[in-house]
């Protein structure tokens, strides 16, 4: 199964696109707006979702044939890094990743309808929160319905339209329409208020479409997209909170000096950026592999998610401390990021399991006589 896609924008155009996304988020989703969202004082979640639809963000990565811009993994990375930097609320990751995945898997007939509905903002997706460990739900004898329950990332209250869930079944992945009766999503209250977690309850819920997955490669690809999106979110968010923290340190005076001038703190700040830069480049590796259709993409995406989410936890935690007393108050930003970081760390599968899976994939590549580290020079 190839995930290859050709790059349709050059570097300068990508930079312009990134800036345009950043500009929108800086104006619509700044710290004040996110804080108001946490306190239920605005509708940032749905306004952002509407705006994302209007601006075509939901189709950024999708093939042009599906009404998208064809940016592939590069698009996922670019958009999610900016969403992370601004701690944007919403169910972007599951919707973007599932749509991207559906554009690359074959064997079902709903592709056009589902992807069209995503681009137009009428459909949103949810995926198993622990996709890598998800156990198949029970299917009816004819395979037409599924029953059981599952914790999912998504269930997008801000999306006006229809929500679908990707559900693991014995033969592959079932797409289930959340109709509120046969398939229900109950929100799970979580520490991170910028994401939606839900419990899916299916009772003979009709299967809208089925993605067969005899060899597990389809599921692995979906996992790779989620991994990449979480890694991008983590890298972007880590950089976002680190930069905000440094700005704060320049303004905050102690002992008649800005705390940014204390060498012990300056060195810690430098270390944050060293860590972030490393994970940014590991993510770059995963993006290139996914966009090149490299057979090693699954390995690199998992390593990227593990590394980036851990770095994000480290950075966000140190940013609390670098803020001093206000660092762990509700009114400042660090707590928003540490909660998002801890959730990113837990999603998809534990980083321990992801690294073990990556080693399995490395072994497989070596057994097949393939090098996994080839890079142009």
């Amino acid at each position, binding site marked *: 199964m190839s995930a290859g896609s050709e790059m349709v924008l050059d570097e300068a155009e990508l930079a312009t696109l990134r800036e345009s996304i950043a500009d929108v988020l800086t104006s619509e989703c700044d710290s004040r707006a996110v804080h108001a969202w946490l306190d239920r004082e605005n509708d940032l979640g749905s306004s952002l979702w509407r705006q994302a639809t209007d601006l075509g963000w939901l189709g950024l990565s999708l093939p042009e044939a599906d009404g998208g811009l064809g940016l592939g993994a590069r698009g996922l990375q670019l958009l999610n890094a900016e969403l992370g930097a601004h701690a944007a609320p919403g169910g972007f990751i599951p919707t973007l990743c599932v749509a991207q995945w559906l554009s690359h898997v074959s064997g079902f007939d709903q592709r056009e309808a589902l992807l069209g509905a995503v681009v137009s903002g009428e459909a949103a997706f949810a995926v198993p929160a622990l996709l890598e460990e998800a156990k198949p739900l029970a299917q009816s004898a004819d395979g037409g319905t599924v029953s059981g329950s599952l914790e999912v990332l998504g269930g997008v209250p801000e999306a006006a339209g229809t929500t679908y869930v990707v559900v693991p079944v014995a033969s592959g992945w079932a797409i289930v329409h959340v109709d509120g009766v046969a398939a229900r999503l109950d929100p799970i209250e979580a*520490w991170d208020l910028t994401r939606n977690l839900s419990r899916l309850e299916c009772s003979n819920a009709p299967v809208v479409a089925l993605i067969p997955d005899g060899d597990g490669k389809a599921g692995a690809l979906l996992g790779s997209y989620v991994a990449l999106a979480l890694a991008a979110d983590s890298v972007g968010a880590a950089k976002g909170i680190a930069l905000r923290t440094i700005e704060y340190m320049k303004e*905050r005076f102690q002992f008649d000096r800005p705390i940014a001038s204390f060498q012990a703190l300056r060195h810690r700040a430098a270390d944050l950026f060293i860590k972030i830069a490393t994970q940014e480049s590991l993510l770059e590796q995963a993006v290139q592999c996914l966009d090149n259709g490299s057979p090693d993409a699954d390995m690199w995406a998992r390593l990227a998610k593990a590394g980036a989410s851990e770095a994000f936890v480290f950075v966000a935690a140190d940013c*609390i401390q670098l803020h*001093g007393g206000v660092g762990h108050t509700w009114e400042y930003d660090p707590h928003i990021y540490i909660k998002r970081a801890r959730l990113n760390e837990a999603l998809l599968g*534990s980083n321990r399991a992801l690294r073990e899976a990556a080693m399995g994939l490395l072994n497989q590549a070596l057994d097949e006589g393939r090098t996994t580290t080839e890079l142009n020079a």
Partner: protein
Amino acid sequence: MILEHKDDLKAFREAVRTWTRETAPPERAHEWQRAKGPELVEVQKWWMDERRKVGLATPHWPVEYGGAGLGLEHQIIMEDEFARGHSPGSEMFVISLNHVPATLIPHGTEAQKKTYLPAVAAGALWCQGFSEPAAGSDLAGLKTRAVLDDDHYVVNGQKIWSTNSMYASQCLLLVRTDPAVKKHQGITYLIMDMDTPGVEVRPIRKSTGGSNFGEIFLTDVRIPVANRIGEENTGWMVSQSTLASERGVLSFNYAERDMMFLVDYYAKARHERAAWLDDPELQREFMTLFGELQSLRQQIRVLLREPADAPTWSMLPSLIKVAKTTLNNRIHSFRIRAAGLSSQFIDPAWRAPMYEYLESFGMTISGGSNEIMRNLIAERGLGMPRG
């Protein structure tokens, strides 16, 4: 009944244990373990009332001020038994029962002692107005201004991180009375009634959403000169008595409870066959944390044995401060990873991993940030010169 055993430590311990078990049966521990905010205030007030009935509220105070003159060893036994008995905590009364007498007894007037010590012994909850938003770690950089007007000081300014200030009746307040001199001079120490006009307390929300400290806004607050502790502009010196009153007994109690919690956590994990028990990496990490927590208990015991009036500066309190706060953070970070995704769901259970983890970030700052501690260790402990 309990105090009569004060000369026989073994009997004293036995009496404290029996009383604790009867008064706050461990079977009811879940009641106070889940209390937060005002409910927690109620629990601790109730518990302090019970302690008072048997002379265990202020037994460490000098006899002349209504105490029983018990020593550190009695306090340790009490805290040990309270911890073992899973009794309610008393940290809300640390300022009332320790900071207030430590400040008033050496520096207060007779009238102040007669007014305030019995009230504190009877359950008055005090807070402390030392920190200010702009000062942070630079405590002496405080800017809250007090101007003498006849027999009152008129105070304007703002205090922050004042624990339980929203529930307190009085406040130990530091103000600037002379802005022209060096910062450590020019500070005066006052007692402020919290219901004085112009005092407004706004709770500060923490990252968990809860609040146990507040900001105190002071607008033309009139405090009688009679409420001054010590002379004008000697407040910094007086405040050293306040700050020196924490002797590690509270840390001791916390560390004891933390170990009991960690042992229970592990027993529960085994009982439930938690998945992490099968992961060698997490096994080793747990044992590392377990070892370090025991080590902390050993360190605190050494601290408690250190003479309060040792001639040389001791690194130990600073070493312990950094070690215990970072260990606490690491333990809960471990629990988050061990639990996996479910740790990210809001869980009202006592000591839920993510709740404790978020709370732990308060500890690495409050009571002298870990950065200040490292400065102290390097400069005073290791003799490394300031830059």
